[in-house]
């Protein structure tokens, strides 16, 4: 007989572990095949492992192969083993496959992975401990043990997915792991690559839907309705009946917002955007927009909320930019601060204050914290070798030096990295270094610097983390990053720089130095608050009363979760430290990265020019928020989500509900007499609302948005099934039914308008104006679904909320902003598609070419930086290419170079 296995196919684990049983009974040949090879002639999809029997028949089931090996060794089939194997095939296998797919292919972690298998793991653990046998079917290892071990090994080998409380499962798993055949199987299949060895195989597998239907996908499927208990229904109905009266009284608006004893005080910060550039969509979703949703939600919960942000303005990058644009650093900051502020205003970000770091308060607070650290012995001094330009009379930051790469000889290597060979360079190792400003040769000088003694603070930090992180809403990636930094051990970090544009160091001998940005940027939150209110310490030196939520992209985690807490703990001034650190992954653009220099991607200021309203941008960015894994912005997907979710689902439902009230009932909400069907709907909506609350309390912003869409889907279905437009023409009972359905629907619409407020504030306000929803009902989101539009309530004029996005509109935007689809391809099919471009688009491209041509000419006239000119020229060439394609002209071959 011949066994076919494939590297990285999980089924090979139990099969190889069981193969030893057949030894001496039959000759076994083992062949390795590719994961896509169709070994079994009668199966449509490739399947490995497979055992070809001597009579020519095939065993394509992993379990059947193992069973066969055991049968050969003289084992007899028994009921208990059969039961375990059937359970493995029907329950365990789908759950494990879903978990592995999540973990290995989609790169998810934690509960996303564990969630689908937890029940199965608990079942095994209970069976083991109830029978108090070391193995599944008794005192000795048997077929069932091998098959289940093989199914579970890829997942459980990572201790994170073997819950500690499952003690019996734990020791069973360890016992099997230590068996020689199992160890050998692991060695052969995973080849010491761990679970990643399974990736090529799993990627090729069709994703089976799990029995729970809980597989994560970007598109919501038909949700299966939860089963409702009588209790759930009774509670939902009684809450509904209480109506408006049960709303709490509104908090009076405070100015400034200050913490109040006995209340929940929520302080929200979003990472400070760096001032020298226009933020792109990834920056916006990573910090300000995510924090804004949470801040708005927090206010809807009537929590005492302060949301602040500002621009981070000090540092080398600002100085560079200033030199490029021929302005002073201060002028650069003023210019870009205004750009940032206007972009966020357009996106409707509800800051209580949007400040900046170049203020006297920043100097005062930073210097105070530094003094305290210095007095307490947490600051070290050391000498660093650096390049200094004598002509400019200053030390050169890495990006101010250029020279010959010491590794590959490339002429224009930068001070930190060579663009040609990609190796990291220490600026002092560059051959023939040149000051980028004056082109003279810098010399190596030593310079004294200050270091924050992180190793000395490490123990305090760990104690604080132990107290803070468990049970908090720190995102898994943040926990992971901090853990890995601590595992590698903290090292002293330099906190000063030889620059002018920064917070001065208040220490003798350091007068010509400033603090390094990452030391004082996080202090920016404090100084921005201090500029907002002189009572800023009520927020920042009040850890008992204040809940601090900090939003950022994952690259900022070390500064917020480690460096700033160390600084604050060392300063010993009772600072408020982060309680919940919410970090996103990265957002990509189409199939690449956002790139300012290559002109790829949508940047904050351009979003306004697309003609797509801010709320649609907010919706789509939040819908694809990189929560738990990287995600990508895609124009096609934006169009799809707008047209399917907003227009056809949410907009359609809310509009229909309102229209029925206007058309059939003269704009007056009709009497509602709830049948048991209505009560069930009411309960489903209530449960979904509570789910929304649970998710948002944990800042799972993207997932909570799905709840809104689910409710409106329920609503649409409800209207579709009950057909009020038909019943309104029927008899008395029918008309009453039409009234109840319409009344329920419009109340759901009112609820949705409030749930939507954190995500789409303008649309939310529009709905509320159309429905004439009362102020308290607009301002508070209770945990139950209440009747906020009682019978007799008069609504306003109803009109559609969303516009359809058209294909050609999106296509021209995609062309305009660059990205995957415009890559020039020699395939005629693509050219044909582009030649049909409208004259409007050609005109647009021509304008672009002219504009870009002027930029290049201007730069050349100014004798600007070579790299910068090159980048602009590249853009120009690309535009010309697009234009040529759009006009249907053949491409000109670049001069002097052969076409491939």
């Amino acid at each position, binding site marked *: 007989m011949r066994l076919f296995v494939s590297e990285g196919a999980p089924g090979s684990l139990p099969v190889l572990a069981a193969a030893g049983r057949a030894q001496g009974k039959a000759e076994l040949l083992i062949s390795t095949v590719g994961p896509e090879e169709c070994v079994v002639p*009668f199966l449509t999809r490739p399947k490995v492992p497979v055992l070809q029997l001597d009579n020519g028949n095939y065993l394509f089931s992993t379990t059947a192969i193992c069973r*066969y090996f055991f049968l050969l060794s003289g084992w007899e089939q028994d009921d208990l083993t059969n039961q375990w194997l*059937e359970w493995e095939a029907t329950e365990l296998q789908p759950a494990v496959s879903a978990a592995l797919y999540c973990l290995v292919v989609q790169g998810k972690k934690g509960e996303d992975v564990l969630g689908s298998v937890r029940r199965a793991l608990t079942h095994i653990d209970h069976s083991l401990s109830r029978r108090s046998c070391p193995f599944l079917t008794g005192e000795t290892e048997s077929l069932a043990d091998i098959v289940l071990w093989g199914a579970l090994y890829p997942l459980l080998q990572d201790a994170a997915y073997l819950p500690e409380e499952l003690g019996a499962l734990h020791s069973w798993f360890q016992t099997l792991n230590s068996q020689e055949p199992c160890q050998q199987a692991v060695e052969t299949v995973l080849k010491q690559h761990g679970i990643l060895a399974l990736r090529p195989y799993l990627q090729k597998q069709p994703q089976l839907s799990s029995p729970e239907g809980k597989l994560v996908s970007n598109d919501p499927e038909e949700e299966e309705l939860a089963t409702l208990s009588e209790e759930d229904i009774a509670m939902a109905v009684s809450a509904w009946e209480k109506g408006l009266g049960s709303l709490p009284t509104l908090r009076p608006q405070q100015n400034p917002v200050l913490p109040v004893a006995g209340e929940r005080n929520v302080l929200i910060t979003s990472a400070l955007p760096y001032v020298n550039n226009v933020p792109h969509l990834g920056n916006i979703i990573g910090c300000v927009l995510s924090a804004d949703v949470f801040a708005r939600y927090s206010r809807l919960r009537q929590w005492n909320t302060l949301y602040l942000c500002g621009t981070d303005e000090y540092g080398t990058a600002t100085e560079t930019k200033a030199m490029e644009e021929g302005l002073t650093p201060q002028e650069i900051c003023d210019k870009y601060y205004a750009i940032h502020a206007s972009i966020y205003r357009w996106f409707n970000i509800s800051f209580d204050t949007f400040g900046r770091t170049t203020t006297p308060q920043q100097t005062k607070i930073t210097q105070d914290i530094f003094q305290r650290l210095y007095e307490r012995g947490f600051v070290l001094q050391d000498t660093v070798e650096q390049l200094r330009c004598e002509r400019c009379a200053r030390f050169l930051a890495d990006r101010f030096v250029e020279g010959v790469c010491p590794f590959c000889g490339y002429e224009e290597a930068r001070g930190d990295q060579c663009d040609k060979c990609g190796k990291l360079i220490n600026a002092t190792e560059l051959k023939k270094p040149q000051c980028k400003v004056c082109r003279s040769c810098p010399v190596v000088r030593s310079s004294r610097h200050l270091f924050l003694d992180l190793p000395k603070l490490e123990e305090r930090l760990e104690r604080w983390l132990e107290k803070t992180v468990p049970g908090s809403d720190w995102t898994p990636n943040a926990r992971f990053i901090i853990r890995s930094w601590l595992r590698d051990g903290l090292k002293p970090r330099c906190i000063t720089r030889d620059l002018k544009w920064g917070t001065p160091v208040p220490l003798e001998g350091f007068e010509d130095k400033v603090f390094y940005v990452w030391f004082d940027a996080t202090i920016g939150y404090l100084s921005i608050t201090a500029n907002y209110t002189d009572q800023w310490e009520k927020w920042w030196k009040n850890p008992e009363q204040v809940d601090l939520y900090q939003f950022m992209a994952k690259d900022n985690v070390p500064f917020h979760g480690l460096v700033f807490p160390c600084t604050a703990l060392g300063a010993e001034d009772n600072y408020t430290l982060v309680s919940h650190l919410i970090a996103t992954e990265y957002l990509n653009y189409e199939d690449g990265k956002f790139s300012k220099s290559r002109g790829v991607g949508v940047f904050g200021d351009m979003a306004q020019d697309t003609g797509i309203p801010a709320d649609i941008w907010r919706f789509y960015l939040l819908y694809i928020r990189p929560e738990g894994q990287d995600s990508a912005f895609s124009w096609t997907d934006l169009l799809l989500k707008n047209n399917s979710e907003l227009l056809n689902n949410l907009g359609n439902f809310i509009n229909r509900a309102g229209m029925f009230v206007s058309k059939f009932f003269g704009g007056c909400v009709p009497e509602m007499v709830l049948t048991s069907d209505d009560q069930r709907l009411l309960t489903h909506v209530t449960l979904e609302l509570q789910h929304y609350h649970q998710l948002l309390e944990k800042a799972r912003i993207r997932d909570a948005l799905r709840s809104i869409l689910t409710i409106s889907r329920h609503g649409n279905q409800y209207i579709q099934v009950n057909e009020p437009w038909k019943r309104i023409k029927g008899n008395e009972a029918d008309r009453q039914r039409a009234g109840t359905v319409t009344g329920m629907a419009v109340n759901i619409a009112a609820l949705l308008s409030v749930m939507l407020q954190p995500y789409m504030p303008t649309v939310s306000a529009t709905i509320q104006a159309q429905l004439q929803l009362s102020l308290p009902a607009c301002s508070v989101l209770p945990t139950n679904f209440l009747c906020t539009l009682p019978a007799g309530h008069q609504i306003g004029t109803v009109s559609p909320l969303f516009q359809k996005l058209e294909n050609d509109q999106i296509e021209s935007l995609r062309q305009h902003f660059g990205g995957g689809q415009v890559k020039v391809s020699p395939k005629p099919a693509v050219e044909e598609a582009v030649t049909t471009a409208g004259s409007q688009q050609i005109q647009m491209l021509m304008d672009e070419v002219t504009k870009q041509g002027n930029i290049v000419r201007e730069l050349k006239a100014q004798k600007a930086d070579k790299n910068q000119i090159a980048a602009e020229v590249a853009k120009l060439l690309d535009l010309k290419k697009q234009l040529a394609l759009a006009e249907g002209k053949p491409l000109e071959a670049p001069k002097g170079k052969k076409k491939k």
Partner: protein
Amino acid sequence: MAAAGELTLLEKWLVLQGGHKYSVQGKQQVPVLQTNNGLSLTGLTTIAAHLVKQANKEYLLGYTTEEKAIVQQWLEYRVTRVDGPCGKEEVRTLLKNLNSYLEGKVYLTGYNFTLADVLLYYGLHYFIVDLTVQEKEKYLNMSCWFCHIQHYPGIRQHLSHVIFIKNRLYANAH
């Protein structure tokens, strides 16, 4: 057909005395049998194999070692693929695979009638009833097998008799 009902049919065919009572478990309605020694057995194929042994008809689980493994493989196929979440596309794939497997075979193991044939017949009946004449002809090997099993003494019981036409109507189709 609910799994418990199917087991009752099997019992009748095996001529077992006493008539067991089945409960079901979970959303998938997995059957559970309380055995005489106080233990319970869960799962369709597990219980079916148990009943076969009770009736002293162990040959239905396969004569040779190879057959035993093949029978269990098709029983697993029954509960994972035939009972799994089935879209139209999946059913078509399943019938296609089964059809090409059955080429040149009388029963699933080849020449011996086994429990695998019985349970696959019960599981598929629901789909086969709805096939068009053309489809039945397309999956010719499968149709022959199915027709053969439904005429095996005592198997069909109250299930409807599926008509297969012997002369080929769509000869040009393939």
